[in-house]
């Protein structure tokens, strides 16, 4: 009986550690995807002169979920009559809980919507460039955090479990 309890405690505590670690390692991955998405969007706007809904559609097909979901929803929102900024920001708020991103990431991503679609292509490119740089900074930070904290959280989970088991038993 004691053994089963001990195993359960150890298992759940380690899982929590692994879960947090997983989330930390997902963040740079998703930021990287958004960075790529912005690059693709730039190409669509600059060379393709593709209208936003169509460009969003292409992106949603070429990216992985849940980042793809962001563009898919934004496209639907535009088609339902929202202006690009609102369409984007609504999509972000809907998807953000599925992403492993932090508050600061969310704000930068929301900001991308501000100038979306409302100026000449040269202007659009400049805005997207700026957004890309901001995302890139966050990405660097996230990579660093991953290196430092992923192992830490895993060990922490397992060791806390062990500690509790030892104390109780």
């Amino acid at each position, binding site marked *: 009986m004691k053994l089963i309890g001990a195993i359960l405690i150890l298992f759940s505590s380690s899982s929590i550690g692994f879960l947090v670690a997983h989330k930390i390692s997902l963040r740079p991955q998703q930021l990287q995807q958004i960075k790529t998405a912005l690059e693709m969007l730039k190409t669509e*706007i600059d060379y393709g*002169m*593709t*209208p*936003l*809904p169509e460009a969003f559609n292409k992106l949603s097909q070429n990216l992985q979920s849940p980042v793809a979901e962001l563009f898919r929803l934004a496209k639907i929102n*535009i088609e339902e*009559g929202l*202006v*690009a900024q609102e*369409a984007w920001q609504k999509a972000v708020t809907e998807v953000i809980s599925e992403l492993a991103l932090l508050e600061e990431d969310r704000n930068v991503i929301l900001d991308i919507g501000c100038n*979306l*679609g*409302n*100026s*000449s*292509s040269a*202007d*659009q490119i400049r805005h997207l460039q700026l957004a890309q740089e901001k995302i890139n900074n966050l990405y660097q930070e996230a990579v660093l955090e991953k290196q430092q904290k992923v192992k830490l959280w895993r060990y922490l989970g397992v060791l806390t479990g062990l500690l509790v088991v030892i104390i109780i038993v």
Partner: protein
Amino acid sequence: MANNSKQVLEKTILPVLAPGLRALIKKVPAREIEDLVEIRVRVNKPLLLEKVKQEVLVSADGEIVKNVAGAYRITKKDIKETLHLMTNSSLYTLEEELKSGFLTLTGGHRVGFVGQVISDNKSIRRIKNISALNIRLCQEIIGAADKVIDNVIAGTDDIHNTLIISPPRCGKTTLIRDLIRQISNGISDLNFSGLKVGVVDERSEIGGAYQGLAQNSLGIRTDLLDRAPKAEGMLLLIRSMSPDVIVTDEIGSLQDVEAIQESLNAGVRVVTTVHDSNLREVKARPSLQGLFEMDTFKRIIILSQRFGPGTVEQIIRQ
């Protein structure tokens, strides 16, 4: 036609208006706007619905008001949202349009706009901070040319060179559009077989083209050259599409006249229009004189607004 106008409004105009304006116009009683011609949207100014003979002011609740003080005033946000919807949130795809000051909606409606111009070397590079829009409803009236078509055609497979003289908003473009359709399709009742028609549509008014594709029916033998400068466009059509008839709207410059003469020399018939109210004034225009010296036009149709747009005042045969 009244019903038609309302349908057109609901199907193609309202969806691209800012949600606030859309709700407002939806509340306006249908009979008040059955002959709507233009919607004027200017920042900080009242929303104006222009009908054929008068304009209508609307309050914030969608009621018709007489006094400007009670009228709904357009906000900057209204214009911004409208532009977003009209351009599919992709203003960057319309760089040419931002230069020329108008864009065409699906359905062929033309939206003119003004704002702050960015220019270089005396030419307009683009317009930003757009402050006013003029949405002109495109009224395609099938059969608008029924009253004049038998004067225009000559035998079973030829037409007369025709000039339409009309003041603005008298249905000149509507008439020429239906003429194109009938000449192109042919008319079995009059035993007239269709001809190949080349249309130079400098301001996208005739075809109401959206991404190069005519939104109005222009007939089965019609080639539409959208947004081309008239003179160059006419010559291009002759070279590339071998039309029997060339149609263009609102001629005026010396180059236009030269291109028309070039077309006539190539054996092509010409149908065109000119902004004016009578033949005497047209003949007095220095740039157009070349056309009258040689009696180019065998048929001259004069339009007015006396019994509503599209009233045929006179048909002169020469």
